[in-house]
């Protein structure tokens, strides 16, 4: 791995953020399995280096758009556990007052314009966010996260064309985890994903999404160039999801093998890899790391307990926020 930040703090924060995502997801999964979470959710576990490598290269005012598999992006962009778990449980103190849930979690205070339950649905939003920056003369960059499956949505080509024509400061980040739902990527994507971006004149990179430093280094470069008006850019990040498509997708041998899962989890885990590197480089000791892990675990568990005890929104909220200027739309 390449050293991209010389600052110990930065490395440790990257580790911490990856670990926080993993911990968040372990708890979310548990909530589902114990039937405490309403609906379904999609776990980000395994893909942590992507969200963290990218978001650690961004400022608070930089924007991201996220996906149905969005907890990782949300944490990486700076969100708190409490408001996140509250949202997942539909509680009033959630980021969206319980109205959005897992698939619509947003945290605009940190520049997260929100998860999206329409595959590819946020590609226009991300491009528009970059348009705003250009029009208003801000130097904010927007990163658009989406899966390999989302490359099948025509919207992507429409907005890439405009972003390229107008040099918008947007980075399209394709999280290629090898599957869309229960289907392998090669069965639904003809040709080459990066070539598709290149055909629009967009510089595209394929990169190991399990290597947080590599991801971070590339992103830093591209973000800096995008700020100068050299965008847009495209990144295809090769990664893997550890869980099923959603928490309920338990028996998945019919579409992917246990061996494949084992291989990724044991030999390509982004956290394990980065942890050994930190220790090797003398940036942190095993003990320090264990302490960090324990602290994160505690944080997460406390946040879960908090969220479980937190109140639901009052029923009178049901017709609030339909319009900005009407307190109760149905009153």
């Amino acid at each position, binding site marked *: 791995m390449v050293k991209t930040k010389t600052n110990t703090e930065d490395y440790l924060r990257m580790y911490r953020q990856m670990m926080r995502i993993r911990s968040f997801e372990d708890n979310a999964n548990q909530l589902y399995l114990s039937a405490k979470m309403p609906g379904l959710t999609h776990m980000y576990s395994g893909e942590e280096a992507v969200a963290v490598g990218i978001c650690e290269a961004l400022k608070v005012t930089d924007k991201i758009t996220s996906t149905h598999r969005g907890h990782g992006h949300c944490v990486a962009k700076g969100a708190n556990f409490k408001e996140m778990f509250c949202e997942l449980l539909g509680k009033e103190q959630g980021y969206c007052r*319980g109205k*959005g849930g897992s698939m619509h979690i947003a945290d605009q205070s940190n520049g997260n314009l929100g998860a999206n339950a329409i595959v590819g649905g946020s590609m226009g939003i991300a491009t528009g966010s970059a348009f705003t920056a250009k029009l208003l003369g801000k130097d904010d960059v927007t990163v658009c996260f989406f899966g390999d*499956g989302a490359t099948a949505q025509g919207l992507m080509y429409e907005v890439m064309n405009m972003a390229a024509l107008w040099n918008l400061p947007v980075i399209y980040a394709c999280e290629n985890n090898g599957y869309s739902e229960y289907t392998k990527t090669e069965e639904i994507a003809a040709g080459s994903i990066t070539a598709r971006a290149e055909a629009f004149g967009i510089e595209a990179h394929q990169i190991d999404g399990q290597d947080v430093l590599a991801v971070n280094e590339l992103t830093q470069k591209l973000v800096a160039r995008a700020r100068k008006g050299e965008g847009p850019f495209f990144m295809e990040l090769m990664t893997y999801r550890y869980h099923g498509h959603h928490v309920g997708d338990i028996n998945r041998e019919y579409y992917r093998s246990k061996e494949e899962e084992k291989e990724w989890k044991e030999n390509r885990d982004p956290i394990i890899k980065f942890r050994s590197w930190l220790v090797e480089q003398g940036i942190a000791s095993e003990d320090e790391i264990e302490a960090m892990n324990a602290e994160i675990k505690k944080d997460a568990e406390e946040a879960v307990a908090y969220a479980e005890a937190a109140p639901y929104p009052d029923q009178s909220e049901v017709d609030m926020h339909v319009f900005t200027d009407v307190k109760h739309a149905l009153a």
Partner: protein
Amino acid sequence: MREITLSQAVNEALAEEMRRDETVFIIGEDVAEAGTPFKILSGLVEEFGTDRVVDTPISEPGFMGLAVGAAMTGTRPVVDLMFGDFIYLIMDQLCNQAAKTHYMSGGKMSAPLVLRTNMGATRRSAAQHSQSLHALVAHIPGLKVAMPSSAYEAKGLMKTAIRDNNPVVIFEDKLMYNDKAPVPDEEFLIPFGEANVKRAGSDITLIGTSSMVQVCEAAAEILAKEGIEAEVIDPRTIVPLDEETLIASAKKTSRVIVVDEGHQSYGITGEIAGRINEKAFYHLDAPVLRMGAMDVPVPFSPALEDITVPTPEGVAENARKLMSGEMIHAA
């Protein structure tokens, strides 16, 4: 009679029609090996192969358009749209192309296809996976629209839809997929445009679509205990609409409530109420009441979601008011 689930009913209808007519094929996301996320199509790919049970990329406009062209040239596609909320993505191909093909060609071409999709809230799926959008397509001339209220209707209407030479949209309530109902072993079809009087009654008419038929039946049970005899009618198809049966019942009972799970405003209850008001006006003792889902995006929080849709208690309460001559809504 044997009882099967609504899922099984759909599965049987498709299998039977695919056996009968080899130009019938299924196209959509994860319809083959996975049998859809709802597992409705399990077993079909094994019998009919991947040529006729076709897994697509996540390209709703694309495969809908493909289906239109396939239908125009001699096949009978059954398009599987995983969530009714995605209908927004395919409106152009459905409404500008499929719906108008026959008319624009002066009757020389046609697009005999079925769009299978779903509807229904209270599944904690939030605003983009919970909508009931049948009003949008019912408004477009050239499309037929079916709304099965049980496994029986799901089977009979699906078979009719596949044999129909026009584009047909079927909305299944995703909360009823596991609900069982008696379904004959022998083959049967349910003609379009024939409402089903689920329960006879002389005091008030309750018209319900899809799962609201059950809501109306439950309301009728409540009311029966109070000595109010409600007639419950299921239109089964909203295009064509069996006006005659609805109006005859309205004339008989002189009081009507129309219950539907689409948003109330500018939804289908307006049309149904409008036709009854126009044609049975002088027989009515009270205005036709409309009960749709609240005019709010579907909230995630269970505390809010459940109150957005009509319930048996709510229907019964309104029925009581109508019976007691209370001038509901009257200013």
